[in-house]
């Protein structure tokens, strides 16, 4: 039997990796990808807990999260395309006109 904490440690690490990628990468698409990592970490957490809690709540929640992730991806990538069309860039440090 695998202890729950293993899953949680893995989730936490993955979440941090996602955060790290999110915070340091320039490329917006990779940042999106990092969000997916974070969401996956959450999913793992939820499913693992669900498993140990004898409940399906986490499972269903995961399903919804995946749905939302899909929707987010669609819209987010749409925004990136609009941005790219306008500015020919996908780098986060090149979109800093709004500041101060």
């Amino acid at each position, binding site marked *: 039997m695998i202890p*729950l904490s293993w899953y*949680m440690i893995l*989730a936490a690490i993955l*979440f941090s990796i*996602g*955060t790290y990628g*999110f915070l340091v990468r320039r490329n*917006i698409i990779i*940042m*999106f990808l990092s*969000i997916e990592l*974070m*969401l996956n*970490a*959450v999913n793992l*957490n*939820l499913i693992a*807990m*669900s498993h140990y*809690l004898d*409940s399906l*709540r*986490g499972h*269903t*929640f995961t399903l*919804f*999260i995946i749905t*939302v992730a899909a*929707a*987010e991806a669609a*819209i*987010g990538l*749409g*925004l*990136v395309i*609009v*941005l790219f*069309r*306008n*500015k020919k860039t996908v780098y*986060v440090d090149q*979109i*800093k*006109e*709004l*500041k*101060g």
Partner: protein
Amino acid sequence: MNMPFTMPPLGPIMPEILLVCVGLILIIVDLLYPRNRELLSQLTLLACVGLIALLFNQKPASTFGNMFIVDPYSIFFKVICLIGLLMTTLLSGQYLSIEKIRHGEYYSLMIFSVVGMMIMASAADLIVIYLGLELMALSVYCLVGLLKDDFRSNEAAVKYFLMGGFSSAILLFGISLLYGMTGTTDLAGIARYCSEAGILNNPALLTGFALVISGFCFKVGAAPFHFWTPDIYHGAPTSMTAFMSVAPKAAGFAVFGRFLMTGFPELHEQWGTIIAVIALLSMGVGNIVALSQTNIKRMLAYSSIAHAGYALLGLLAGTSEGYSATMTYLFIYGFMNMGAFAIVILLCSADNRRESLEDYKGLAKSNPMAAFLMLIFMFSLTGIPPTAGFIGKFYLLKAALAAGYTYTVIIAVIFSAISAYFYLRLVRYMYMDDPQEEFVAQYSPGLTAALALSTIGVIGMGILPGSFLNLAARSLIGF
């Protein structure tokens, strides 16, 4: 194993369903009558008014296995959101034609985001909260990026999206921890389990809690999660800025409040202080940075951060009085902020957006009415009687003081005095400087109506707030 499918009662959720329908109808109408734009906004207005009437007649109830609760509290927030929608719709006509934005999706996206907010307001389960939040957020991302040829709009949308995604992830991780610790995502269930199992001081639970409130703080734009506010308010289409400063914020407070109130009432000691810190930080950042702004939208953005801080004063009190104070404040804030943005839009023309503070110089001479109304809104935002802003602030201060947060209140009050400086600066520009260009604003009927509504709201609630306050206070009965 056969599980009979039973349809839950749909009565309580009827307003949301109807609104979704309106949103869909709008898309169809837009498709069928691409030229008739008035129709879209009129339908939206009609829907708003109808739904507000409907909401007022709703009885407290719950459905979907207590995931969706209709109570005066949620109705109140829904009304705020719908009023926000109503006002934004009134504002939008003129703005959309100036900025050449397509109407069809605009209105329906706004409507869907309001559906998300209404779901948030009623949600009693973290899953529903999350989904409502995402429904709202995704619509708003699109709306912010609606000016596709405007790089600022793109930038704002992308930034908003990135930060929103991050905050959602944080929120979700928090939810997962709470779920794991309690075995449920139902707020009432969480509260029950926490006190039964005595895990209130468990660091893991607290971490989950901290992550969740971080997510909510992001939604309401409180420091240190406020960074999106200025940039997004600045870049977004002005009508959307107006909308965002009112409706999503109110919805954010709705879930924030419910989360604290229903989910963790017994943890008040811990979250009281942290929210006090967040509130003060928000007021500090908002008011102080607003001092050096030169763009009105950015200035109002920082002001909205500060106002989020004020509104948090009610939450930190943790009393039903505090919540009703926050609600009152948000309601009033909706009117005054909408009014201010209406003026911003009023001054906007195709060749010049007039978003710089300098553009307001001498407004009293060139457009006395606009200047006078802006004056009222600015004083209301400052919290000077007899405007409604004062009543709202008073209520918040009172609630926080009654809960014993004297020092927090004193600091808040000092920040409030600082805020007067930049609101006054606008008044100074308008009244005490000479105009730089001859410009006569055009009042479209929608904008006029929006201005009238917000002025009546600001003055009316400032002078005769009695029955309105009672309404807000009554919304908390049963909590």
